[in-house]
């Protein structure tokens, strides 16, 4: 009797593990089988031409470039803010000090705040300052969204650096600032993982940029211009009643899937290979 119950549950466990892992392949399969047919060179090398949204020619280069601008800009800006924070709570602040703990808690909470709230907040600030939807507003809002990811991931990487390391650096007479540089060098795999994770999150996010970056058919040439993004391009084209436009949404989804898969897999390999060189 005890055995039967255990076996039933074991079967259920294996089944649910299979279902959950299977959905990943199901999603990727669905998107590829629907979208590959409409994916061609024009799609990824041209910006929308006149009548694009009623099925005429052109591509989604505007959205690809826009997404890359926002993602790269936000990741760089995010690193600029989050590396000092990670250094402060790990090296300057005392271990398990109140400030370090409250910072970690704040970032855990900020990590859970959905992007639509960041988007609405970014929009409120923009209205307050009299700004219009622009590349810059998009970058800043997405930066807010990814700082928690950067801080949490890098914090974890820095925390596992052995204490002996910082002790020996200190004993050579180094200041905290100099120690920070050494510790950071030891945490490079973690930092790379953090960058790729936030890159993936930033490029896939739609709710944030909906309010702040707007949408446009051209490639932005300055920070004040609105910028298109891939997720929004998929979303808008999919809501069109015209079949051709919908097909292009599926093709755009394939492009986004490929980008995200490349980033995720690189992150996995990077964190594995880079950590080989660690002491």
């Amino acid at each position, binding site marked *: 009797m005890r055995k039967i119950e255990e076996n039933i549950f074991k079967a259920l466990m294996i089944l649910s593990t299979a279902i959950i892992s299977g959905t990943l392949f199901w999603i990727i399969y669905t998107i590829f089988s629907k979208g590959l047919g409409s994916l061609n060179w024009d799609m990824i090398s041209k910006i929308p031409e006149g009548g694009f949204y009623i099925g005429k020619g052109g591509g989604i280069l505007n959205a690809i470039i826009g997404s890359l601008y926002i993602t790269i800009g936000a990741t760089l800006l995010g690193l600029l803010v989050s590396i000092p924070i990670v*250094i402060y709570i790990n090296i300057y602040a005392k271990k398990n000090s109140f400030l370090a703990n409250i910072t970690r808690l704040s970032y855990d909470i900020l990590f859970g705040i*959905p992007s639509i709230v960041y988007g609405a907040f970014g929009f409120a600030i923009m209205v307050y300052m009299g700004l219009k939807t622009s590349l810059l507003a998009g970058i800043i809002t997405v930066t807010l969204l990814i700082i928690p990811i950067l801080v949490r991931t890098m914090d974890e990487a820095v925390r596992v650096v052995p204490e002996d390391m910082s002790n020996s650096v200190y004993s050579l007479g180094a200041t905290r600032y100099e120690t920070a540089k050494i510790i950071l060098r030891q945490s490079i795999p973690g930092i790379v993982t953090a960058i790729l994770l936030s890159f993936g999150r930033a490029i896939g996010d739609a709710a944030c940029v909906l309010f702040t970056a707007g949408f446009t058919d051209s490639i932005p040439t300055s920070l004040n211009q609105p910028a298109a993004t891939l997720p929004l391009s998929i979303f808008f084209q999919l809501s069109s009643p015209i079949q051709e436009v919908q097909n292009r949404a599926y093709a755009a989804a394939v492009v986004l899937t490929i980008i995200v898969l490349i980033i995720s897999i690189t992150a996995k390999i990077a964190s594995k290979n880079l950590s080989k060189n660690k002491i």
Partner: protein
Amino acid sequence: MKNIRLLKDNIFGKIFFTLTILSISTVILLGFGLYYKSIPLLNHSSLGHLLSSSEWKPFKEAFGFYSFIMGTLWVTAISIVIALPLSLLTAIYLSEYAPIRIRKIVLPLIELLSGIPPVLFGVWGVLVIIPIIQDYIAPHFVEFTTGYSVLAGGIVLAIMIFPLIISILIEVFDNVPQELRDASLSLGATQWQTIKKVLLRKSVDGIVAATVLAISRAFGETIAVLMVCGNLAQVPHSLFDSGYPLPALIANNYGEMMSIPMYDSALMFAALLLFVIIFLFNAISRIILFRIEKRTT
């Protein structure tokens, strides 16, 4: 020379400290900014009325959030009902039964799943879940449905929150000391009995924390839900009714909100509602998880 180094150390320390303090205050700033924008609406009608009325007529300045709140609750509840048992079984399997080999294959897959952007879940929902509901599930229960329903939203959300629940649960299970399991097994309990009586009982607070975090994630998910829920401003009465969750409301109307008086304030109030609920849920579950981590180390 020594002084310059110390000076550098100090200056950078001050800058880093300021940045840390500033960045923590983002939490407060977020709440305050959204509250500030919702003041006009709160002066216009009472909080109780806003939450309990389901009259939504922006042109008449009638803003009742009841149907949107119910839409959010339906979708979230469905997603948790689907995701929690499946994730619990998977997490137990991966941490207690599965050979290392399988764990090494499945965990990266789950990580990959968590990296898929919401809009792609939405596309998949439209292509796969909607037709399944419309053609196979709904006809057994109701006469007509388009498939765009709270059930579709719940299913898509459930898949989106799997990775979050599983990764937290596995961490919680790993934090249960091995000696407790050994003690139970040495008394003659089977592995399953040990799981039921020791592992799960020891992890109750962790499971609660994971669930609360998952709820708050489901609460705020926007684009995917927007694509599959149907977005009719009504209180859903069955799984196959359309719903209109709060995040979808915000995302769908940002275009026209500046042209109707009070509308922007109403949408900011919706964002504030989301923020407050999610903030509380996150804070509670993070504190529980923090305690668990502290207990074992």
